[in-house]
């Protein structure tokens, strides 16, 4: 036994002399000190990585049998479902994994909102996260075209045509994306290439950078205080514990809990009542048969709602007053001439745009802003404290409204845009924007509690 350990030790030394195995191991696991007070919300980062691995592995097996050709794609998916041994399992792992990816990532982001994980010194970490979200959305959108069902086709048709609303270059751009005048074989082939090679590579790289950035600044925690400010005589944060073994064993519990829910869906309700796999997508793509209502999958519906809320009336009665009020508020709060001039200039450009460009364009802008605004959070939040535990009622109320509005927008995005549903989506759109736009004010006015010196339970 001793001899085996000795040989293994020599083997490790041989590698370590040529590659920094122990250095990486120590820096990122055994001697990476994480706050000891992580709670439930801190599972979702490692879970997001788990889902990424599940998606890559199941995706590789699907790629072995899938055919990116409009004449063969739909049948090849059914071939995977029926004739490929365990093909149905690979397909359901992948389709369910897509939805769980967004569940996990949205909860991961919500954790950041609650505990102020976007605040300094973690601004760049947060920005990388926003880019990961965008890449993930692109990945999911392009993957959804591949089964070549009727909703695949029409969903892609609708979303790609949105780029047509961009003035001057719009039509050229949509043709460039599709590679054709309609969503067709050229589109399917390039989406396959991007979905299987380009975006996963980018995602893997971004996740790596995300973790490198995290380990540089250290993890935030539910109290929102910096454990590095309070180090013992050995130079180790007194509230920190080594990631390995403490958080590796804890995350395994999270993995087990996650897999229970995930496998329950994979094996018992893979369609999840039409939310994860839509009934309309079990009919082959047909440009002559438009589905009754075209709906993106649930993880896009909040943004789809932002897009559809933007009618002509909404531009006049929603965006115009919002722009005027925000401009006046910035002018009142800021004495810097440069800032004031820039604000007035931006407002003037927007105003000109509202009355010259079609509402559809502003819908696309809103949809984009719905995601891009997250990137500004590090600079919008002016609160002296990071965590919701020490913030006042204004931030708590704002975050609660934001979450409710996000869910309502998500639901409305699955419904036909008619009658009071449109008004509700428009009210929610304004509230969604105000969560970000008013943040500098309400986080300043808010009465906060003092942060503790040490982390609490």
């Amino acid at each position, binding site marked *: 036994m001793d001899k085996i350990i000795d040989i293994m030790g020599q083997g490790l030394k041989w590698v370590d002399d040529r590659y920094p195995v122990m250095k990486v191991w120590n820096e990122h696991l055994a001697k990476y000190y994480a706050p000891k007070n992580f709670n439930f919300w801190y599972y979702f980062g490692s879970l997001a990585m788990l889902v990424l691995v599940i998606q890559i592995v199941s995706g590789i097996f699907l790629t072995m049998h899938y055919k990116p050709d409009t004449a063969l794609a739909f049948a090849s998916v059914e071939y995977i479902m029926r004739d490929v041994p365990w093909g149905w*399992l690979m397909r359901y792992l992948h389709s369910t994994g897509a939805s769980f990816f967004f569940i996990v990532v949205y909860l991961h982001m919500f954790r950041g909102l609650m505990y102020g994980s976007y605040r300094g010194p973690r601004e760049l970490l947060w920005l990388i996260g926003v880019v990961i979200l965008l890449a993930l959305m692109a990945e999911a959108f392009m993957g959804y075209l591949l089964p070549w069902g009727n909703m695949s086709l029409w969903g892609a048709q609708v979303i790609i045509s949105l780029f047509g609303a961009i003035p001057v270059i719009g039509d050229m751009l949509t043709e460039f994306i599709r590679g054709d005048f309609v969503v067709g074989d050229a589109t399917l082939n390039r989406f396959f290439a991007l979905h299987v090679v380009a975006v996963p590579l980018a995602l893997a790289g971004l996740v790596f950078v995300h973790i490198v950035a995290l380990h540089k600044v250290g993890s935030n925690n539910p109290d929102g205080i910096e454990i590095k400010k309070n180090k013992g005589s050995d130079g180790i944060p007194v509230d920190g514990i080594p990631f390995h073994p403490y958080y590796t064993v804890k995350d395994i519990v999270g993995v087990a809990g996650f897999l*229970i829910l995930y496998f329950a869906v994979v094996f018992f309700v893979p*369609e999840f009542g039409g939310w994860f796999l839509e009934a309309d997508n079990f009919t082959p793509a047909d440009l002559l048969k438009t589905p009754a209502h075209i709906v993106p999958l649930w993880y896009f519906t909040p943004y789809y709602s932002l897009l559809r809320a933007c009618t002509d009336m909404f531009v006049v009665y929603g965006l115009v007053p919002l722009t005027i009020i925000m401009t006046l508020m910035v002018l009142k709060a800021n004495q810097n001439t440069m800032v004031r001039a820039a604000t007035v200039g931006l407002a003037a450009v927007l105003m000109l745009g509202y009355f010259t460009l079609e509402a559809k364009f502003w819908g696309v802008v809103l949809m984009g802003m719905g995601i891009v605004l997250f990137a500004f959070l590090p600079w919008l939040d002016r609160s002296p404290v990071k965590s919701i535990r020490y913030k006042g009622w204004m931030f708590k109320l704002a975050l609660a409204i934001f979450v409710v509005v996000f869910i309502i927008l998500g639901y409305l995005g699955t*419904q036909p845009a008619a009658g009071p549903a449109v008004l509700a989506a428009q009210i929610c759109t304004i509230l969604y924007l105000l969560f970000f736009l008013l943040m500098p004010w309400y986080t300043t006015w808010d009465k906060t509690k003092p942060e503790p010196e040490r982390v609490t339970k």
Partner: protein
Amino acid sequence: MKKLVIVLVLSLFSGLAVAGGGDVKLDSANIDLGDRASLQRGARIFMNYCMSCHSASFMRYNRMARDLGLTEEQVKDNLMFASDKVGELMTASITPAVAKAAFNTVPPDLSLTGRSRGADWIYSYMRSFYRDTGAVSGWNNSVFDKVAMPHVLYELQGEQRAVKNEAGHITGFELAKAGSMTEKEYDSAMRDLTNFMVYLAEPAKLVRYRIGAYVMIFMFVFFFVAYMLKKEYWRDIH
């Protein structure tokens, strides 16, 4: 704020109403995929009637034989009318060109109808044909108005006439001419057919519940072990 909440809640329900309205009320098919005899009876109806015009072109005969507990000989002798090799896909007897000439449309592939339309739809649809002298085929259907398909099973069900209210909406059916089956027998046969078509849409359904149960049992044991391990490691963290 309160007003806003009320508007939002109301809008949610009105949204639901919009989504629910306009659809035909469907009867519950109440199928049981575990009932192998029912699946076999359904397969018999499907092969005898449906496959004259419809294909199930993603499904192979021998796969069906295996899943339904039939030998390849049994399938060959009793259920194969459109081809002669058990490894083949289920293709309709009629060619698309002939079908197009006869019905002015190509009958859709039925491999996935159990998933795209759902069990209740198939069950209700097969029981909702009625005589309509205005239609080209002489038949209409209250679940699928102006459908090109004639009532293929009228010998079994008999001929129905639609009972309409003053507004012209169909409220029910009356049997104008009896078929070879009673209403109860026909409903039961259609339940078997629906059962088979749901199986046809996803053959893996027969195994995934069983495998899923083992996976869940393993996961709960794994969760417990992982939790105990975590507790053991974390004992010294305060």
